[in-house]
């Protein structure tokens, strides 16, 4: 029974990224390639991102089954900078329940010559599901699925860390807030592990933590003062309003008292520690304005880097696809040559030409 050893559905037969669904199962070289490629899109002097013709003639469809403004916008900008043809669709989940099945929707759009789908969906595992059912030449990029993964967001965070710290290797990173419901945090933890951060800590009340944080390779702290001690990077997570309604925490005020990032608490980290936040921030809930706007905050840079990182992922996927096609045609002609060598009498015009 091979049910525990199924091959990674994200990789093609050459071991290169085909779909970008989650960071789990990817190797360090995959991540470094993304970071290096993103770097190459940014003008080192001006921080500008130029338009490049890499994806000219390719069609990318952004399918948002869940509302999003920032992620969708940065994807659209990234796609335009790569010169792709872009179509964005907001598909209310109710529409798919009106008789048209989810897969029918997908296959219809696929028939409109899509080369890549960028998908956001409220169900964990949705991106895996779509990747299983698209045509072999179509690629799926996960822009957030339920509480499972948001790999491009995590990669832009790694990019930001690398920009400021040179490398992720050996860093101590603290993630503060709602870990339980956050797909971003799950992906960040995987990215940090793959890039060999020294220690990953998660900080917050037990009600906002998954039952088994150790299964994610992190250390859990319920006390923020202890958790922030001596860290290089602090990642704050946005607190959703629903968490109060479902009785997971008492109030925003109490949360800020217990876990809000203030200047005093920031002083417990290393002096050159950076503060990150995937945005949009709740001032006075998870983070004090003085910290958010302070010298150690890199929050707005994250947004800019998001464009470059998303460009990098899409460019790599399409170039891997071209490489695979090249490889396959070479294999095919090799096989033909072998065949011709075995039967020298048979006349094969294509081999003769070659």
């Amino acid at each position, binding site marked *: *029974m091979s*049910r*525990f050893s*199924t091959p990674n*559905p994200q990789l093609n037969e050459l071991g290169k990224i085909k779909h970008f669904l989650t960071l*789990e199962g990817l190797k360090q070289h995959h991540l470094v390639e993304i970071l290096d490629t993103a770097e190459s899109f940014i003008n080192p002097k001006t921080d500008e991102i130029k338009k490049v013709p890499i994806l000219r003639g390719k069609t990318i469809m952004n399918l948002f089954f869940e509302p999003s403004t920032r992620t969708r916008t940065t994807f659209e900008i990234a796609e335009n900078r790569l010169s792709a043809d872009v179509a964005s669709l907001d598909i209310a989940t109710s529409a798919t329940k009106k008789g048209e*099945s*989810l*897969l029918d929707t997908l296959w219809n759009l696929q028939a409109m010559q899509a080369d890549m789908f960028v998908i956001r*969906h409220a*169900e*964990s*595992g*949705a991106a*895996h*599901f779509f990747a299983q*059912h698209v045509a072999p030449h179509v690629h799926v990029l996960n822009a957030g*699925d*339920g*509480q*499972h*993964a948001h790999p491009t967001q995590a990669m832009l965070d790694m990019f930001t860390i690398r920009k400021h710290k040179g490398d992720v290797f050996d860093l101590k990173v603290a993630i503060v807030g709602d870990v339980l419901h956050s*797909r971003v945090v*799950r992906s960040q933890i995987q990215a940090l592990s793959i890039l060999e951060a020294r220690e990953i800590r998660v900080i917050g009340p037990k009600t906002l933590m*998954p*039952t*088994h*944080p*150790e*299964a*994610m390779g992190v250390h859990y702290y319920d006390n923020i003062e202890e958790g922030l001690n001596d860290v290089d990077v602090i990642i704050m997570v946005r607190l959703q309003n629903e968490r109060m309604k479902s009785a997971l925490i008492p109030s925003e005020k109490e949360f800020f008292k217990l876990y809000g990032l203030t200047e005093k608490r920031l002083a417990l980290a290393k002096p050159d520690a950076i503060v990150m936040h995937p945005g949009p921030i709740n001032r006075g809930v998870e983070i004090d304005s003085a910290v958010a706007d302070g010298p150690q905050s890199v929050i707005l840079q994250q947004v800019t880097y998001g464009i470059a990182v998303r460009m990098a992922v899409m460019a790599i996927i399409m170039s891997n696809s071209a490489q695979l096609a090249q490889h396959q045609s070479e294999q095919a002609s090799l096989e033909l040559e072998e065949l011709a060598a075995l039967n020298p009498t048979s006349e094969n015009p294509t081999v003769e030409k070659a």
Partner: protein
Amino acid sequence: MRLAVNNARVIDPSQNLDEITNLYISRGRIVGIGQQAPEGFTANQEIDATNKWVLPGLVDLQARLGEPGNNFAGSIESETRAAVAGGITSLCCPPDTSPVNDSQAVTELIQRRARQAATAFVMPIGALTQGLEGQRLSGMYSLKQAGCVALSQANQPIQNAMNMKNALEYAVGQDLVVMLRCEDQQLKNNGVAHSGPVSSRLGLVANPVSSETTALARDLILVEEAGIRAHFSQLSCARSIEMIAEAKKRGLPVTCDVAIHQFHLSEMDLLGFNSLFNVSPPLRSMQDKNALQTGLKMGTIDAVVSDHTPLEKDDKLLPFGESKPGISGLETLLPLLLKLVNEYDLDLMTAVRSVTQGPAEILGLNIGNLDVGNTADFSIIDPNATWTLESETMISEGKNSPFIGWEFTGLVEQTYFQGRPVYRNNQI
């Protein structure tokens, strides 16, 4: 017609019988077991079952048959054919049909369709509350009159403790076994995966063990207070089995069953988000799985059920959390039990008892045995044949099985219901 099945290893836990002998059937009934045919018996058909087993027709306490309504795939006709292909000749169908089986009319419809199909003995379970809504009590006396063998809430346990108490106290007078599933909806919190390392990693909404154990604790107390015979369905975790063992030790008239897939699968199978592994209650941890296996070996678990839930293809063609839970399980109940015997050291007699004598005693019915005088419901098994489950050859209209591709040892060759052959494996 007089049939003799010769030289078979005949296994019947209710008689503590396990020997190589002959089985004699006349006019649809078992007329004798032994080397010598009963006086005056001359067979006009003989089956040589050397190296084969004969088992009583199995009893399944929980199998959805697709009718009435569109909640599930298939029909009573198709699903009873799937049942006998798995050696099952008696099955209980839970009340989560559409409309809900909370009235004589629905009970009678099910029985009529089953009689028309004439493939297996179908025993309807009536709803404990109207529409399974957990509020108003159903007409339990009428349901019993119509032929319901038990009462249950299917997969929708009563949440309100007062209503539960009243339902149990009213049911005492009806002398029907009450089958309870334990799940606190608030603690379940729409969870689709066991609350553990895998749900933490995959970000699937977690359903903790406590959703089952707190409800079980409540129900055990209410059952004791009401003084009713109660059966707990589809338990999924180690702690629940401990609680049942304690209750039995205290002398409470309680029994329990576990769905067969819980002995073979665990939360680990969810890696990859395959919606075929979406079941309710969810697949638990490896420790829970091992504890369930031990509970079966020790006899704490009285019955094993298929929890057969045939679904349409589209019901599973969705992301994990949006797919419908359930496994089409009639055809793999016995094969998976035999796998426990072959690979996990389960005693064969205990395994067979859990799908014959065990469930029959829970229902208080004279089925699932090979007693002389009883209707001849039995199957002939080739214990050495190996085969692979394939979706194309599944008889159930629901092809939603995570066991497709699994290899099994032990094949149902023929099944007889009321002395008539209702299934023959055409591979022979």
